């Protein structure tokens, strides 16, 4: 693998930002609008329907808080991986990225237990307005976590061989963005009752 076999277009950087990072920013921008549209819809319904509070009481604040902690910590590992990659320490970056990915999977496992509990209580996707939004918003976010955690393993495999280290930063940017979405979902779904 050498940069020579990539198209020149990929290596040029007329804007001053490398293409890989630039496309990550554009992806984040478009994701803001996808999540933004969904969250805006949720918020306007939530304000208009005070009776949803009764349903919101059933969400487990501590599970949500612990998941926030897991994501925040994984974000820390992601940014430390970037720091390692920045100093050309591929193996260390790979190790940290795998920890980040582990955090992502841990998040999903906790989410799985939480949802199993909710479903046993009788709250499913179609149990009413709040639950529909609860599962849809968190589910869409969960899919992003899953995708990020898997992509990160591939990036880590390359990084371990000191290849494509610039990708460590990009996948990290994406991960922090997913983290920020959760930072807002946590109060929206678990605290505002």
């Amino acid at each position: 693998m050498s940069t020579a076999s990539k198209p020149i277009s990929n290596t040029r950087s007329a804007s001053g930002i490398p293409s890989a990072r630039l496309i990550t920013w554009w992806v984040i921008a478009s994701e803001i609008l996808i999540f933004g549209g969904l969250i805006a819809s949720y918020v306007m319904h939530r304000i208009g329907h005070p009776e949803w509070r009764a349903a919101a009481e059933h969400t487990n604040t501590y599970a949500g808080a612990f998941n926030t902690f897991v994501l925040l910590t994984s974000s820390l590992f992601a940014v430390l991986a970037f720091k390692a990659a920045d100093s050309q320490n591929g193996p260390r970056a790979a190790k940290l990225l795998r920890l980040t990915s582990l955090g992502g999977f841990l998040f999903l496992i906790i989410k799985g237990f939480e949802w199993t509990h909710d479903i046993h209580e009788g709250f499913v996707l179609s149990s009413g307005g709040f639950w529909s939004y609860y599962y849809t918003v968190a589910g869409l976010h969960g899919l992003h976590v899953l995708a990020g955690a898997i992509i990160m393993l591939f990036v880590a495999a390359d990084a371990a061989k000191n290849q494509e280290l610039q990708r460590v930063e990009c996948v990290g940017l994406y991960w922090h963005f997913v983290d920020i979405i959760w930072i807002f979902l946590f109060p929206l779904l678990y605290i505002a009752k």
Partner: protein
Amino acid sequence: MNTQVLHAEPGFFRKYCWSTDHKVIAMQYMFTGLIMALIGGYLAYVFRMQLGFPNQSVPGFGIVTPGRYNAVVTMHGSIMIFWVAMPLLIAAFGNFLIPLMIGCDDMAFPRINRLSYQIFLLSIVVLIASFFVKGGAFGGAWTAYPPLSASGAYNLTPEGATMWLLAVALEFVAFLLGGINFTVTTMNGRAPGMKMFDIPIVVWMIVLASIIFMASVGPLIAGAIMLLFDQTMATGFYDPTRGGDPLLWQHLFWFFGHPEVYVVLLPAMGIVAEIITVFARKKLFGYKTILYTAWSTGVLSFVVWAHHQFVAGIDPRMANIFTVTTLLISIPIAEMVFLYIATLYGGSIRLHTPMLWALAFIAEFMIGGVTGIFLGASGTDIYLHDTYFVIAHFHYTFVPIAIIAMFAGLTFWYPKMFGRMLNETLGKIHFWGTVISFNVIFIPLFMTGVAGDQRRVYSYAQFAEQMRPALQHLRTISTVALLVMLAFQVVFVINFFWSMRHGKRAEDNPWLSNTLEWTVSSPPPHGNFAELPTVYRGPYEYGLPGRALDYWPQDAPN
């Protein structure tokens, strides 16, 4: 690793089906888009026949039942916008032109580009398959307003509705990937020396369109997920009895739906700009002003969406805000058209086929533009909303965009794409046949619209006031004109394939143009440029006094 090896000649499969070459992907998009245009045209033929000659068996289709009529109308709208206008104008021309025009060897992310086309193809497979499921294709109009679209009990096409929604969602993903790639490529991949205002307008416009698309489609993707759950998981996002709201979908849809108009308009404007400058041998009048108008159109397009919903049950006070913003957006668009017309002043105009198409675009688009004012003004929209006036209006914008400007671009860049010239005589026959019959189709529809014909109705038998004989004559005229227009497309198909083998061999720069794509051989080789160019000036230096040639290519040092 598995990145592709450049400049090596790959096998047939890798070359045409699994290629990451932007030109091959452009051709894939183009041929797919043209095939979809044929399907869309066939559907138009079916429902126009039913309207022009009611209740007779349509040759090549059969009896048009109400259910089939709804499905045919829905699919015509969806296909023409999502699977014809967008792939042809943005994806095909964007893929072909952007790397060539900015002087670069490929897209910034060739494999994402390939993935974009593959997802697009998958969306078509899902869409076409929906014609053959139980209940047939979705019949709830391309706007898919719930609760009609949300419940199979209402639309009677439960599987078709879900597949339609999936297909549209996949198409969105494909164009998000493609559009972001275009944007990054243009921002980063430009040849040395090409500054922001040296980029050809068509590239600017495709990139702006991609950005507008990206910014407008997000909420609708979210909305589509919710509608999908309403259809399949018994949720109630749009169900008023369960805390949902059907208006929410309308807002999410039109928040995307209106910018979408500009998503396809801007690339068409870009194509026309390239062509009129080359064939008038003129510098574009006010290059920067055109860009500013395009930007302001893009921004304004996000605050006008509810003019599609004036009578849809939104609060009537909101309509006043949206009337003002809607009329506001007419200002930059009018100015852009003025600038195009002004470009012709002092030119030396050659009326080759591409130029005819480009000029026809300007002339016809103006009709579409001014008739929009009737609909943007809330007072008249009360009467005209959901009548054939609306249909005639937006076809006077979409046909110039997706058909006329597309043909303009196709005839203009055909020599570069295939290395041969198109036949001029056949091209002109096709041009006049298409443009004249296009007007004969839609001018009668303006009249039936103001005479009260409502949309999406397979028969007016129940409406005494619409059964006036004069109206039926107008509908029949329109249908016959459509048949004529479709027949003239045969001329194009013959010209297209005949010229590909037997046309005159094209030189590198047959139209004596300035932009970089004309400096490589026709068709361009894999990797485009033998030596990557450097840019010294803007793209429209024509008729410069004191020079031997009346054009000055961007990459010529002096």
